[in-house]
């Protein structure tokens, strides 16, 4: 196949994937974006969500990430994520707990904007984990 993207997903522990794909979906902070071959160079921060690889060598691949950033070049995508899990690796029990904790933080945050943000982050992370786990099973 011509014109495939070189995709790498790097975590602090190791290089998780190093492959080629037709398209990559990324959970940027302001919403999902899809990257195809020849994309304009881009540096973006990632929020909580799923990285999806389409048309990769090993079929479609999905990883749940919670924070990271990505460098997009016309022929190469490098994702740096603090943690990346396959949907089947997600512990739904713990994610649910995290969601509850997030809601509790949200309720207790009061007028503190920082705490709200932190609570929202926790909720978003837990929700994205639960969503990926649910779509898997």
């Amino acid at each position, binding site marked *: 196949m011509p014109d495939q993207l070189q995709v790498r997903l790097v975590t602090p522990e190791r290089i998780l994937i190093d492959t080629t794909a037709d398209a990559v979906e990324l959970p940027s902070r302001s919403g999902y974006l899809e990257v195809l071959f020849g994309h304009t160079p*881009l540096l973006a921060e990632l929020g909580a969500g799923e990285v999806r690889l389409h048309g990769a060598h090993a079929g479609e691949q999905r990883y749940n990430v919670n924070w990271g950033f990505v460098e997009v070049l016309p022929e190469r995508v490098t994702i740096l994520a603090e943690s990346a899990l396959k949907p089947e690796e997600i512990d739904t029990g713990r994610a649910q707990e995290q969601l509850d904790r997030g809601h509790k933080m949200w309720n207790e945050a009061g007028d503190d904007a920082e705490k709200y943000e932190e609570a929202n982050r926790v909720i978003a992370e837990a929700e994205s984990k639960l969503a990926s786990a649910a779509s898997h099973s």
Partner: protein
Amino acid sequence: MANVLDLRRRIRSIKNTRQITKAMKMVAAAKLRRAQERALSSRPYAAMMTSVLQSLKRRIEIFDPETGEVRHPLLLTRPEKNVLLVVVSGEGGFAGAFNANIIKAATNFIGDHNDRQIDVEAIGRKGRDILRRRYPAAKYLEAQRSEHDEERAPRGERQERVAPVEMMDDRYRSMLLKLSFDQVSELGAEIVSLYTREQIDAAYIVYNEFKSVIQQRVVVERILPIVEIGAQDVAHAEEMSREDRERAVEAAESAGISPDSADFAEAAKQADEEAKRFGTADVDYLYEPNPKELFNAILPRYVTTKLYHAMLESSAAEFAARMTAMDSATNNASDLIDHYTLLMNRVRQAAITKELIEIVSGAAAL
């Protein structure tokens, strides 16, 4: 003079000890190999993060053009009054001078900076146990415990100091046993928040740097404030002595690990070079969000990455030290066995000779 039976017992006991030290050496060697691999595979992330920060830094104004002040609180240098010292030691003993060297470096640091108030955050059981005997524990207000994670309740607010040097509580105990990035990032976030709230004016880390079996040193590195991204801000370093190095080479060779690990260094270099290109391509990137926000989001993580890397290297160094120490112990045991075998043979021969003389002189008397 000891009799043959005693000596035989002694030899058997030393043989048993040798068996144990040998096994420990092989275990340490296997763990060292794994730790080296982990340290290697964590490099791309750290290197990429560094290079993207460096390239971002060029695009944003670090200094406010009007007031000339630094924009990001982590880049801001203040006179050091309160200092946090992270001491990374080992979780276990039997590692030669490994833990002692770390403690020594930490105490020297504390001694040299006696005009400052120092908080000691000890990572690793050995260092914590020793330092806790010397310095009083810091007091906290009772932390709010959430029912979700009872074990890891956050620290409460700090109470009045009682001494210039205080130990933090052991919230991060046994972190090194199963080193995970999540836990390190918790610690990193705490340090960053202490710094931005101006409760500390600098953060240092004492750890054993590990480049390869023969390239190790104990370093005191400043992690906050960040003066230059990508550069190591070493306050003090202690190279390993030549004898130590020779012993380490010997141990590594007998355990089947290449001491210089040329392939290791080569792979690391390659990974670094590749990572350097990350985020620095000669094009105009679109930034999402803008460069400044991106920079501010990444910078605190940079501290965590540094901590994580330091801990990985330290645990590799611990295994290397244990391997070397156990190799020496095995050699010493072998020497002792040889010595006692010789002695035992001599004693046995002496006994035989004595008996012969008795028989001969008995016969001559008849």
